């Protein structure tokens, strides 16, 4: 797969997981591309943990960066019919199971569904922000990321970096495959036809169970092309 297509392909595959009416929180980076690939009949309510339910489109006319930003500090907007909330309500919403899906990246994820994505001790200490609450509280946690970090495995038997949360990840979507976290371990349910099962195993440290009903992985991004 061409490098320039990887992120779009992943975002386009995650987009298929979102259902009309879902309340969704998207992490920074790749996950923010997902709404661009949603089918026209799927409308989700995007939540921004700094205090927006129903984020809309920022335009030159409506931008108000002193008063309306997203969780990354960038100008944001609320859709008609949405609302602004404070941080306690926002995290009540998140922790209380009112968010249907959260999609975020990972530094490492392991076969128990443990996630590490907030700190590299001694190197990078940005902080967890809202990530720990999001992955504990959302009904479905999807990790969307490139399968490896410059060739080294990110999907491990056990995370080596400090956890964001334990047993929290439900699904991993990469450019190679879709993995579901089950009580038995990681089950590969879909494979990108550009790769073989052996390719995926070579790029993965975790033990993989190949589903008996392994499907071809497709993306709404690819459908567009």
């Amino acid at each position, binding site marked *: 797969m061409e490098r320039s297509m990887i992120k779009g392909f992943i975002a386009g595959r995650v987009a298929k997981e979102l259902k009309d009416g879902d309340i969704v929180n998207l992490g920074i980076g790749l996950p923010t591309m997902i709404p661009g690939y949603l089918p026209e009949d799927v409308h989700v309510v995007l939540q*921004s*943990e*700094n*205090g*927006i339910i129903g984020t809309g489109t920022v335009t030159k006319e409506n931008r*108000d*960066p*002193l*008063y*309306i*930003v*997203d*969780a*990354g*500090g960038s*100008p*944001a907007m*609320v859709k008609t019919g949405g609302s*602004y*909330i*404070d*941080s*306690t309500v*926002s*995290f009540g919403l*998140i*922790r209380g199971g009112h968010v249907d899906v959260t999609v975020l990246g990972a530094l490492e994820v392991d076969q128990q569904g*443990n996630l590490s994505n907030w700190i590299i001790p001694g190197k*990078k*200490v*940005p*902080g*967890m*922000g*809202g*990530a*720990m*609450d999001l992955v*504990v*509280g959302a009904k479905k946690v999807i990790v969307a990321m490139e399968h490896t970090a410059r060739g080294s495995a990110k999907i491990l038997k056990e995370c080596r970096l*400090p*956890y*964001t*949360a*334990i*047993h929290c990840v439900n699904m991993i979507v990469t450019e190679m495959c879709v993995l579901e976290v089950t009580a038995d371990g990681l089950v590969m349910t879909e494979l990108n036809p550009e790769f073989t099962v052996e390719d995926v195993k070579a790029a993965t440290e975790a033990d993989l169970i190949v589903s008996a009903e392994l499907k071809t992985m497709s993306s709404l991004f690819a459908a567009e092309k």
Partner: protein
Amino acid sequence: MAEIVTLKEAIDLIPEGVSIMFGGFMGCGNAHKIIDALSKSGKGGFTMICNDASMTGGPLGEDYYGVAKLIHNKQVKKLIATHVGLNPEVAEQLNAGELELTLIPQGSMAEMIRAGGAGLGGVITPTGVGTIVEEGKHVHGKIEIDGKEYLIEKPLRADVAIISGYKIDKNGNIWYKGTTRNFNVCMATAADLVIAEADYLVECGQIEPENVVTSGVFVDYIVDGGEA
């Protein structure tokens, strides 16, 4: 009831070395005029409790946006926050041993502050279980309820809270614009001294009682940010 003070009087109310809660999220909802004056006051040794350290590079081209000014001027000796990744000076001062940092999950911090203002003994949350957050000084311990593990997070209060409101009436009732509510709402309840900066100071009655988000009973002093 809240008393209206000048910007200078407000700064005089803040002793050196106290703990201060700053409402705001990446600078949005920081009380910019008070923070700017505090950054020029020469006072320091503060414990800053804020969601983040804001960022370098503000929306109007500021070099340091909101509370980032206080970090830049090294007026903060201890920072309690949830995320500091957009202000590289925090990492620099940490590495140089000039700043002490405590990171708390965002939802826990919001609720700990709410608990601090609401007279609760703590917060019981699943967030952070099984992670290094368990080792934090802000954690009282773990508890199992109906087979599920939780952390007991202590309540969080401060000596001073510095709040930003869009419209504030002369009784201190606050209406917030856009996403500026964030931590302002809970922090206004959780400090011994609460100073609120009004973008527009209005007469009582100009904010309908139904639309008051923070009641003026929580506010001690108001600074008219429109005139300051």
